[in-house]
């Protein structure tokens, strides 16, 4: 007989409550989901139990962790200490082509993955000292809050309520995006405002539902939302004609389009109905960790601005340019705060590459996603990517 989802979630919560699992024991519960080539944003339905555990991880830990040692690291300096003790960064990601997907050999690749690896290089000089924990959009915040991961790099956009009401800190924006629509070419829709009365499939657990409703109210039109938990269900509904459009972040739409059988029969409308600044998220209360994340995420942008990439970086070792010497750590004492290796920016760029390389490799025109840099160009080229100075 089928065990109802609710019942199993409740049972799991109850069982964990009885056995007093500390959150340090939790990582064993966090399933590393099986690789499935899907969109940025999705759970495999095969793992309902896992999802139940993750979604209510917050409840379990808050009820059981007792604030004792082993509780979620939120005190000053404790995140870095537990990463050092563990020997790896734990990075919360959301699977999706171009952003985080395991390749044939199970090696994670993607835009978000590269930034997580940059952290591992800065801390351990080894891009593989990182554990990837896949979350759905619905589980991610509980996963971070319960201490299951050290940060989220999974397409979460900065919003005031997440920062002010839910006590999360955001690092630098590493992708500027906006919500749009994907429609079949056969519907002959060219602008979002023409979608009045349309049935729009959206995925649960994001700000998408909110933006969609705001857009409709602003333009005095109406949509019929069909809210799916699994993005693949939404893709099936669009392909079958149940929905007239799918609405999500622009980068997500590029990924979703590749999931359709005939991607060329579908078009991403030019309208962007919201601002989605994508940034890494960390828990409240550990400024040291926040600053490490801040500067590691900025380094690839700074490198691109200075004209440094993975291929030419070795040639800069003899440079006399003081800005570059400081940035790459040839002059000690500038980059080595918090006990990081003084040459961590050098290591990051030589292993992972600069921002342009990371973008082109995972999302750019030569990839199936075929995204234009747009707002993500450097500020010197008319975009918004700008790093505060390394000095």
């Amino acid at each position, binding site marked *: 007989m089928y065990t109802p*989802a609710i019942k199993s979630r409740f049972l799991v919560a109850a069982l964990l409550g009885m056995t007093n699992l500390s959150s340090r024991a939790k990582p064993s519960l966090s399933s590393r989901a099986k690789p499935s080539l899907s969109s940025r944003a999705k759970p495999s339905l095969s793992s309902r139990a896992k999802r139940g555990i993750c979604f209510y991880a917050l409840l379990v830990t808050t*009820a059981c962790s007792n604030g004792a040692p082993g509780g979620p690291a939120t005190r000053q300096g404790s995140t870095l200490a537990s990463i050092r003790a563990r020997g790896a960064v734990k990075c919360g990601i959301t699977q999706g082509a171009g952003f985080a997907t395991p390749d044939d050999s199970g090696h994670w690749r993607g835009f978000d993955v590269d930034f997580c690896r940059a952290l591992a290089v800065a801390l351990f000089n080894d891009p593989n000292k990182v554990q990837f924990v896949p979350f759905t959009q619905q589980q991610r915040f509980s996963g971070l809050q319960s201490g299951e991961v050290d940060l989220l790099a999974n397409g979460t956009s900065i919003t005031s309520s997440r920062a002010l009401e839910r006590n999360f800190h955001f690092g630098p924006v590493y992708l500027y995006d906006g919500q749009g629509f994907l429609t079949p070419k056969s519907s002959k829709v060219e602008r979002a405002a023409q979608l009045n009365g349309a049935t729009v499939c959206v995925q649960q657990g994001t700000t998408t539902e909110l933006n969609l409703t705001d857009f409709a109210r602003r333009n005095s039109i109406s949509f*019929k*939302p069909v*809210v*799916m938990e699994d993005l693949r269900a939404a893709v099936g509904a669009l392909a079958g004609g149940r929905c007239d459009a799918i609405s999500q972040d622009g980068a997500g739409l590029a990924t979703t389009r590749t999931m359709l059988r005939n991607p060329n029969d579908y078009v991403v409308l030019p309208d962007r109905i919201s601002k989605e600044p994508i940034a890494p998220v960390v828990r409240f*209360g550990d400024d040291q960790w926040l600053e490490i994340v801040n500067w590691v995420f900025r380094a690839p942008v700074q490198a691109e601005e200075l004209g440094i990439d993975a291929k030419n970086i070795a040639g800069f070792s003899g440079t006399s340019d003081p800005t570059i010497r400081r940035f790459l750590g040839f002059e000690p004492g500038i980059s080595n705060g918090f006990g990081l290796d003084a040459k961590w920016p050098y290591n990051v760029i030589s292993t992972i590459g600069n921002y342009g390389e990371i973008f082109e490799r995972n999302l750019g025109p030569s990839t199936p996603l075929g995204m234009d840099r747009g707002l993500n160009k450097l500020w010197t080229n008319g975009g918004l990517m700008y790093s505060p100075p390394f000095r």
Partner: protein
Amino acid sequence: MSRETRAAFSRATVAQAIGLGVSAAVVWWLARNTQMNLEQRGLSLGFDFLRQPANFDIGDTSGLPFNPADSFGRAILVGLANTARVSVIGCALSIVIGFILGLLRLSSNPAWRGIVRAGVELMRNTPLLLLLLFLAALLHNMPAPRNAFEPLPGVFLSDRGLVLPLFSRPRLVGFNFVGGVSLSPELAALVGALVMHHSAQVSEIVRGAILGVSRAQGDAALALGFTRLQAMRFVIVPQALRAMMPLLATTCVSLTKNSSLAVAIGFPDVVSILNTTANQTGHSIETMLIMIVVYLSLSLLTAAMINRYNTRLLAVGG
């Protein structure tokens, strides 16, 4: 009361008091830890968010008026109405169809018996989620609204669901039908899957209960000149009903809980709405508490109603 009885009584009382004390201590310990950990994270518990505007829309509202400016509380109410609608329709259909299937399995016609048996086994041994996704995919591939199938004037069947000409005559405007009453394909898929799965279970309950009635009862009825149908109707089924009522109650309760699978296909049931609410407001613990209370009350309510009927049944039959 003899001395031994009194001693046994007080021993039982002490044991129960200890049991109660231990349970209370565990609950208190969990609650205190929750509170401490929430404070540590700078979070607070509270249900004030229920009055905030929801700012999201709901595709299928069971006929309740809802717009995005309404509160989260109202959105949850709409979700609850959707869950209740699915549960009531699903439970009623499962019992009726299951009853017929159960009787057919006992039919003297081997063809009927075989067909029903194959169908029931197929449904009982297929995961409900699979059935649900299959039905949803099937209904999503119906013709587009422009090419909707119109079996009767004003009745349209398309991938937007079934539109009936009640209250006003539906017509196609742009992407969708306006007017009339429409049943969404998600509702149809959910009710369909739940009914298929649970009516198979009901049919087994019915079959078992009927076989449990003494053979002599049927033989006696036939000897008195009843036809087979009359013997079933007046002698066997009334006795079998008493055996099946508690099991039917359990089936309805489990159908109610299984309706939470709606979230997989995009039907806005109470779990789906609460998930969205938790995500927009960050109040995961409160929404989970609401979820527990909702399912507990729905289950207890269903059980209470069927038990009441069962008590009446027992009072009537000798």
